[in-house]
């Protein structure tokens, strides 16, 4: 059928694990926008959800680190972290091995991908699912971009990854929704947790709304590290989502720095219909 939805959102573990420490109004506004995104995904009637994420050493380590990886299993499990720490109960999440295989075969015409028949989701996927598919009833196709440790795929390759996934989605019979989840600036799990570069975030999101490929991929990793922190490398996931929606413009529904969540929280969508 085609790609029927493309968006981006945050996945910070504090959004569930430390939810009660946030300002109630901020937490409520974030929750409302996640609920809005959930409704938009449901309205698109997808058969599967591709989640482009940046995992944090749940499955992939420096002994064998893929630049890009896609899950190819009929089910996954998560969170891999302690359930109390994340405040998300462990679930078996449905996958679709056959769909994964077809998406991989198609995408590999343009990009090189690793595949994984086993994958234990960490907060990078489980937190978005907690808000967007709380019944864990929509088959997920997980995609990972190494954003943890150099060498990492250049930004322009992550845009190409998104484009390849788009063409793969458009080639299958199923209706596919896609989200990218990561970034924006943050210094997670360090003494600087809570530091957020709001101006840098807003500039990045403006580029994302325009789906300005050149501007989105113009950052060097040195600049990202300086201005966006080590968590900033995760903009790769958001750039890939923009690539999947190449030709469409985006709209940021919500952006707000929430230091106790260690990140500027974001919810945004691409207008695929207007791109025709």
């Amino acid at each position, binding site marked *: 059928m085609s790609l029927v939805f493309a968006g981006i959102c945050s996945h910070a573990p504090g959004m569930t694990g430390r939810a009660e420490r946030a300002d109630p109004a901020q937490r409520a506004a974030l929750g409302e926008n996640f609920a809005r995104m959930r409704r938009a995904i449901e309205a698109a009637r997808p058969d599967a959800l591709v989640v482009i994420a940046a995992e944090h*050493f749940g499955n992939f380590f420096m002994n064998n680190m893929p630049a890009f990886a896609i899950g190819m299993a009929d089910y996954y499990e998560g969170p891999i972290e302690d359930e109390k720490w994340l405040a998300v109960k462990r679930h078996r999440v449905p996958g679709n091995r056959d769909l994964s295989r077809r998406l991989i075969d198609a995408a590999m015409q343009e990009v090189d991908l690793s595949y994984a028949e086993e994958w234990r989701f960490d907060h990078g996927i489980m937190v978005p699912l907690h808000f967007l598919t709380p019944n864990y009833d929509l088959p997920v196709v997980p995609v990972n971009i190494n954003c943890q440790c*150099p060498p990492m795929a250049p930004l322009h390759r992550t845009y190409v990854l998104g484009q390849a996934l788009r063409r793969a989605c458009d080639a299958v019979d199923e209706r596919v929704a896609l989200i990218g989840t990561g970034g924006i600036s943050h210094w*997670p*799990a*360090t003494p*600087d*947790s809570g*530091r957020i570069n709001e101006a840098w975030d807003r500039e990045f999101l403006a580029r994302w709304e325009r789906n300005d490929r050149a501007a989105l991929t113009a950052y060097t*990793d040195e600049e990202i590290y300086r201005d966006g922190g*080590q968590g900033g490398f995760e903009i790769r996931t958001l750039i890939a989502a923009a690539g999947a929606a190449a030709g469409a413009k985006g709209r940021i529904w919500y952006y707000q720095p929430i230091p106790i969540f260690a990140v500027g929280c974001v919810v945004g969508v691409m207008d695929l219909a207007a791109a025709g």
Partner: protein
Amino acid sequence: MPLAACVQGKDPRSILIAMSLYYVQKLIYQLNREPALREEFRRDRDRVLAAYDLTPEEIAAIAGPDIGLLYVLGVNGQLLMHYAAMHGYEWNQYLHAMREGVKRHGPVRAGLYAMVGGGIA
């Protein structure tokens, strides 16, 4: 600073540090994701540690655990926060332990998780 230098540090022994840090992180990665290894680690820690190429300082930091020293050694925060939680560190205690580590042991020696300031107190 070029990113490569951030990873390896400026110490002339940086390649050796990076290699050894790799095994510190590998052990923590495996402890974080494998309940059976965690159980074995609790039962016979020395036996588990012997399987990894670690320096005496690293062994002491892991065994303590000295979360602050592990942070200074360059352990990736995405690994370290779970190792701290495994030892009962609440979030604010974890942040405090890292700050204390920098006070006691100096700046982060390797990796990408150096302290730059600006976090919430």
